[in-house]
């Protein structure tokens, strides 16, 4: 199954978005957790300072003046403290401790230390331990140089961490939820955007489905298309233009073919109908039958040419490469024109040397030469001469062979067009027998053989059609 654009775009959007969201969540979580833990530690520090401040020296006695701290007294999630002197005597304990004891580190550690502990009621907690000198009772009111107590109190304060843990947990849940919501909405948006963006392609498809040969002329509209599709449609329009031209050519070709076949068909029918219209003598019937056969042969030649042309159009013909003796081939080709040319008083001169040869495909070369001779036999004026020459003599070296006729010449404005299919501009040379595909076919076949076919008028008033090794990849050595 083909993977849809929508699917691929959605996967990409979701992938990128998920990565970004996960990274963002991690950072957010880390920053937030750090802040929460710091805040907790700050509170522990404040608690410790407050508790330490309650221990004072009163002469030789160390006193603890407890002031109510509700957090240290309540039953539910209480905070804890414990204070003791350097000699190990416990100075004070928070009411929440009850009979329990608070974990604490080594005594006489000066710097405040924070550790994770297990609270007496089993909760996970965090404890801060600090050691500082006792406050002197009259220090606050004393004037003069301050006195510092030489006795120290160590205070441990602990609080449960559940609030921080719960807050972070809740935050993680929210991040998950929001992340999923973002991904879902983004995928939906991607799907929608792609569907909407591709809507013109569906319109385009519907339009294309409705196209038939007659509508090829109408170009597909480019206006409402997304920029990415416009070049595709522009190319499609070019394709449509080419198809239209091709269809038009095809149509013209069919019309021309039917036209070329109608005339001999009309002649055949009329000849037979006239012959059958009354009782006739045997010679009259023979003459009519002869005419009919001649017409049928012409039609056959036309059909064969058309078929060869169609084959040529559908790809290069498979060409054999063999040594072809030109003189014998030309003589062979001429045989079919001998009788009609003789009737028009045409002279035929085959001036090719018996040794002249070319490496090519015999049958395809025959097609070329036959059509050149047919053309010459049809157009040369009564009593004229058709002469065929090959390499040697005054002909250029690259020339394979030339068919000369004694005229009339082809007008200069017509000459470039004589190789076009069904070209009938050569009206002045027409005797009506000719149909305009012979030369077109001859040139097509010659080119498939790697040969060039050109026509020119001579100063003497004749026409020369020359087959030469004019193409770069000439099929001859």
């Amino acid at each position, binding site marked *: 199954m083909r993977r849809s654009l929508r699917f691929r775009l959605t996967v990409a959007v979701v992938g990128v978005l998920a990565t970004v969201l996960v990274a963002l969540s991690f950072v957010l979580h880390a920053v937030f957790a750090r802040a929460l833990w710091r805040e907790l530690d700050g509170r522990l520090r404040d608690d410790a300072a407050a508790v330490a401040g309650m221990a004072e020296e009163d002469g030789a006695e160390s006193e603890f003046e407890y002031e109510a701290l509700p957090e240290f007294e309540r039953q539910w999630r209480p905070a804890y403290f414990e204070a003791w002197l350097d000699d190990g005597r416990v100075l004070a304990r928070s009411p929440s401790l009850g009979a329990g004891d608070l974990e604490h580190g080594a005594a006489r550690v000066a710097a405040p230390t924070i550790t994770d502990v297990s609270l007496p009621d089993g909760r996970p907690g965090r404890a801060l331990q600090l050691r500082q000198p006792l406050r002197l009772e009259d220090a606050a009111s004393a004037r003069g140089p301050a006195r510092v107590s030489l006795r120290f109190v160590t205070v441990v304060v602990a609080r449960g961490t559940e609030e921080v843990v719960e807050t972070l947990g809740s935050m993680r849940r929210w991040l998950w939820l929001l992340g999923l919501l973002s991904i879902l909405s983004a995928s939906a948006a991607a799907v929608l955007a792609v569907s909407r963006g591709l809507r013109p392609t569906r319109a385009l498809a519907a339009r294309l489905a409705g196209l038939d040969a007659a509508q090829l002329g109408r170009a597909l509209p480019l206006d409402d298309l997304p920029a990415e599709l416009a070049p595709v449609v522009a190319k499609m329009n070019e394709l449509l233009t080419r198809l239209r031209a091709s269809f038009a050519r095809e149509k013209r070709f069919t019309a021309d073919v039917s036209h070329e076949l*109608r*005339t001999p068909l009309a002649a055949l029918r009329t*000849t037979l109908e*006239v012959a059958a219209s009354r009782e006739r003598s045997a010679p009259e019937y023979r003459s009519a039958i002869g005419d009919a056969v001649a017409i049928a042969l012409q039609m056959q030649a036309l059909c064969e040419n058309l078929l060869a042309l169609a084959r040529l159009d559908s790809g290069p013909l498979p060409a054999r490469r063999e040594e072809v003796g030109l003189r014998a081939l030309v003589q062979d080709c001429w045989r079919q024109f001998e009788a009609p040319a003789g009737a028009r008083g045409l002279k035929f001169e085959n001036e090719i040397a018996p040794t002249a040869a070319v490496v090519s495909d015999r049958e395809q070369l025959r097609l070329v030469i036959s059509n050149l001779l047919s053309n010459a036999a049809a157009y040369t004026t009564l009593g004229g001469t058709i002469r065929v020459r090959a390499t040697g003599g005054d002909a250029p070296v690259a020339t394979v062979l030339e068919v000369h006729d004694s005229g009339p010449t082809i007008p200069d404005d017509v000459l470039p067009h004589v190789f076009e299919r069904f070209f009938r501009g050569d*009206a002045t040379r027409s*005797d009506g027998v000719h149909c305009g595909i012979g030369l077109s076919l001859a040139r097509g076949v010659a080119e498939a053989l790697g040969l060039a076919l050109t026509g020119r008028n001579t100063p003497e008033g004749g026409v020369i059609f020359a087959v030469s090794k004019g193409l770069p990849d000439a099929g001859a050595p």
Partner: protein
Amino acid sequence: MRVLLIEDYAPLARSLAQGLREAGYAVDATGDGAEGLALAEANPYDALVLDLMVPKVDGLTILARLRARGSNAGVLIVTARDEVSSRVGGLDLGADDYLVKPFALEELLARLRAVIRRRYGAPANLVTVADLVIDAGARTVKRGGQPVSLSAREFALLEYLALRRGQVVTRTEIWEHVYDFAAEPSSNVVDVYVGYLRRKLGDGEGGAPRLIHTHRGLGYSLEALEVA
């Protein structure tokens, strides 16, 4: 009736000319547009059978030039081009009818008869003058209900007189419409054929009314005069 055939495909021109001649027409044929135009301008053809794609001067140009010169010859276009636009173009230029190749000879002859009829203002193939009935389609003649056997030339002469009945037709006109270039011109050939025709029709004999009248110094006419 005299017809000019302009068709450049020799086998068709040959058989078509033969078919037309055997149908009683005097036929001149050419495969060359320029020659065809010259012939059509020089001779009062009753009809042209015109191929459109002929060398030198194409059929439509011939038609346009003829109509521009005021020629009213019937024109039947015979062509391999069967597109509607081509038909419309030909008819609009003044062609009387249009036939696409290949065609049935019978149909071509029928259309040609119709074209010529129209030219002479005759509504049907049947022309009746008193007790003389001439059927141009079946090429039969009856006088008083009895069939009369005529040669092709005699029938052509009678047909022409019938189409122009009531009018005096000169010898030159008869010559121009009944004979083609293949016929040897001679001074009294028309008079001789009129004589043959009168005899075969029994004109003015045995109490039958005279229908072919001689107008001295002018020509002949075919009509039923009430003067007995």
